[in-house]
């Protein structure tokens, strides 16, 4: 039981990953929810959902307008830790198609600073099907790099090596009559689904029916995000919501 204040202070991310192999490529799972691909000198983050709160506010649900800032700060810390040559934002980077347009100037500047000196790829997602307005970076629907294919929404018929997001994987573990639910990475060795990186994002239990096409059998593993570490479990050890 560490005091909470201490937890906050030590929440600077260390560039230490849990290494796994996806279709023969070595990739590192990071407890921030980001993926580090050393051979590509690439950092991958999925489902940032920038400007989600303001998207809700338009409909009269006044969520605190701090999500973009908090997600940006977290992203900055991970970029600081890994110093990647390239960043891939794996779709749904903005919560809606107007999100990049609404991005306040200060955050826009912060994001631009993060993009300086590195390649930046915006993969489109269902929430943000078009290129962000007034921001650097290349916009693609999907991109193949090395032996890996980066796209937003995992495909049932995907070739091995698919890295995706979209589903916001989360898993539940029960023990001593108590259950813990956390965002997680989900993989079967051929494909990998990243947890949502955005602050205001929920998760979809990997045992939900929506996953049946992605992992048809129970032969997959998850890595739950923890404090400065990941907790690996096979799917058979998980429970439904």
């Amino acid at each position: 039981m560490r005091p909470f204040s201490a937890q906050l202070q030590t929440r600077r991310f260390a560039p230490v990953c849990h290494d796994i192999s996806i279709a023969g490529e070595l990739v590192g799972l990071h407890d921030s929810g980001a993926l580090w691909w050393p051979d590509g000198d690439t950092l991958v983050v999925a489902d940032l959902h920038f400007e989600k709160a303001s998207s809700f506010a338009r409909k009269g649900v006044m969520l605190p307008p701090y999500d973009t800032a908090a997600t940006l700060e977290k992203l900055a810390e991970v970029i600081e830790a890994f110093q990647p040559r390239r960043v891939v934002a794996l779709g749904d980077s903005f919560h809606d198609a107007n999100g990049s347009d609404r991005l306040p100037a200060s955050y826009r500047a912060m994001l631009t600073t993060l993009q300086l000196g590195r390649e930046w790829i915006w993969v489109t997602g269902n929430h943000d099907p078009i290129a962000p307005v007034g921001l650097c970076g290349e916009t693609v629907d999907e991109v193949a790099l090395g032996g890996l294919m980066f796209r937003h929404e995992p495909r049932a018929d995907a070739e091995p090596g698919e890295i995706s997001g979209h589903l916001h994987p989360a898993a539940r573990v029960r023990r001593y009559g108590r259950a813990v639910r956390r965002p997680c990475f989900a993989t079967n060795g051929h494909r990998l689904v990243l947890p949502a990186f955005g602050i205001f994002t929920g998760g979809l239990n990997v045992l939900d029916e929506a996953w049946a096409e992605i992992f048809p059998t129970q032969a997959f593993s998850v890595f739950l995000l923890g404090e400065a570490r990941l907790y690996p479990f096979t799917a058979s050890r998980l429970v439904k919501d």
Partner: protein
Amino acid sequence: MDARADPLLPKRFSDWFAGRGWHPRAHQLALLEKAAEGRSVLLIAPTGAGKTLAGFLPSLVALSRRRKKIAVAARSRAGTHTLYISPLKALAVDIARNLEAPISGMGLDITVETRTGDTPTHKRQRQKRQPPDILLTTPEQIALLLSDPEGRAMLADVDTVILDELHALVTSKRGDLLALGLAALRRLSPGLRTIGLSATVAEPEDLRAYLVGQQPDTPRALADWVVADGGVRPDIGILSSGERLPWSGHSARYALEDIYRTIKAHRTSLVFVNTRSQAEALFQNLWRINEDTLPIALHHGSLDVGQRRKVEAAMADGSLRAIVCTSSLDLGIDWGDVDLVINVGAPKGASRLAQRIGRANHRMDEPSKALLVPANRFEVLECQAALAAAHRGEQDTPPLRSGALDVLAQHVLGCACAGPFLPDELFSEVTSAEPYRTLPREAFDQVVAFVATGGYALRTYERYAKLKPQPDGRLRLAHPRLAQQYRLNVGTIVEAPMLKVRLVRSRAEGRRTPVGRGGRMLGEIEEWFVDQLAPGDTFLFAGEILRFETIRENEAYVSRARSDAPMIPSYQGGKFPLSTYLAASVREMLADPENWAPLPDQVRAWLELQRQHSRLPLREGLLVETFPRANKHYLVCYPFEGRLAHQTLGMLLTRRLERLGAHPLGFVASDYALGVWGLGDLGAMIGDGRLSLDGLFDEDMLGDDLDAWLAGSSLMKRTFRSCAVIAGLIERRHPGLEKTGRQVTVSTDLIYDVLRQHEPNHILLQATWQDAATGLLDISRLGQLLRRIRHQIAHAALSRVSPLAVPVLLDIGKEPIFGDAQEALLADAADDLVREAIR
């Protein structure tokens, strides 16, 4: 007190009384007098004193006179004359039935209707067009009517508002909602009078102030009050069983035979227990030994409404011998002739006990009869203290709450739904309500800003504002859609997500068919409880042992189980903390052996042993014992301040002990004591001065330590969620409208974290803190405790467990152990796999 002589009571009424062999009681006539003087009034009367009739009498008399003057044609245009507001839907329905007798008996031309969440839409619409003379309803319905111009028109002529069970209403956020509604009603209909009906309370002035409008910067305005004759002193006993008194636990199994025999010896008994799980267990056990097959029923808040109504009806027609029930029957619905109240477990509060006892014998000239059945030794002490309080007629109802800000936010939106408003006017209206009398203007403005744009320091949502300023300074609702949203979210009760429990045929019964559909609905159960169950687990519910099958949408499918050893639900519905007043009485009793005379021999011997082996808990100070046991070191203290305050204290103590290098492992809290255990030798640390008890229990733990702990506390997050729902930040979960997947919704935990980090003074966090301080964390009471015991901590360094500590240690394993164990749990579960892999 001759009825015929009273000029205020028309002949038709006095004849009706006389015809039934009754005469109006003094307090009933007193209320007529107050009505004639145009005064608001609080009536304090025990159950069965004709309280309800007293409340309605002035309205019935006024309406009977009015009819003569008003032409029939004009009638449909008149608004409602009298509003009756009760905390329970069932009570409104019950009262409607009870009013039937005098109205038809006297041939009065008065319309009475109910309006609750169950009232069909067409009837509600009709009520707005043709308001009944008397409308029986709930605080939520008042809020709904006030949010709608037609509803306001219907209430514009209200003459009298009767508030039933006021003592119960004012202690919750529903009381805040109602206070704001009353303030709005007063502005709508300036001549309005209120009549509060209440059981005996500790501070009647609070209720009297609640009933009338308050003015700024003047002493509290008070309604008049009338106290009905308290009747005969109750006849209360504590069960003295020949069986051995348990050290711990809440089941009172030892007394089962005694309880059964007592039920048998009486006509009709109400058996009160404190939690739903205890009700289930006791009911089950009573039927196990029910050789005479006495009709014994079960009643608690989770049971299906239909089933509850059936039990209530059976009770009303006198066909039951006993009902095992929880506080769901605390409030004053009248059923048949109860001649005995049995309270199993600790009463938790003197007034609570008095109200429960009041359910027996509704004739005022006969004493109520009650039997207290303590379930363990500490509860014997508590029962004794409660009994003494009952004999002295002392009360310990909680003080009036100060109005919650989340409820105010809801009300502000409701007002906007009714039409544009001027903030200045609304502020004076709101502060005329007693709970909001001292609300600073700044807080009010923050709440209005919250409703309009979320109220964030970062003013980014102006263009999406829900309230738009008009040129004349009024605020107008931005879109009619917001009014619909408001109507779906109105109310202050935020339930834990519930699942319906449906009985189906078991899958285990052979046939390989899917689990059957369409079985009987048994009731509702908390989602988190079902979450813990694996298919095949058995538990007690609705008086049966059930086998959990599966979850389908929002229903839990269960089947009848053959097992006779169920895994009993551990859900805690209706668990009350020990009242401060009783706690003080218990400490006083313990501290002085002279007070032990009324206690059973076993308990006296137990305390005597404690005196010899350790020492007795102090009246004002705090006894702290330390002792080693099985490789661990224990610290047990006896604050007697209730479970909630002890839990908070336990959290903070372990945090401090951790920092001091004492390696605490966990703690367990009961209503009476707190036990902490760890690897470090706490006794030795205190002995050689490395650990100062005064320092450990210093009040400054309520500063940084509390703050740091609250950051991650799930209790705080739960509290925040309910504030966010009430204040309208997020929408209520509506059954059937939950199609959206989890990935689209925003969890309030995330909102809480972000808000706490970026805007720690946000109005919703203030509301959360206000709730937690008096609610789940009971910080106010913990603060009082720490101040009381300062420099009065006695340490007993023992070589082994003390007699008083035994029950505390026995609770370990039965009660949840606290601590920030999520990470540990995950690590443990994950490491299990590693071990498996190595093996």
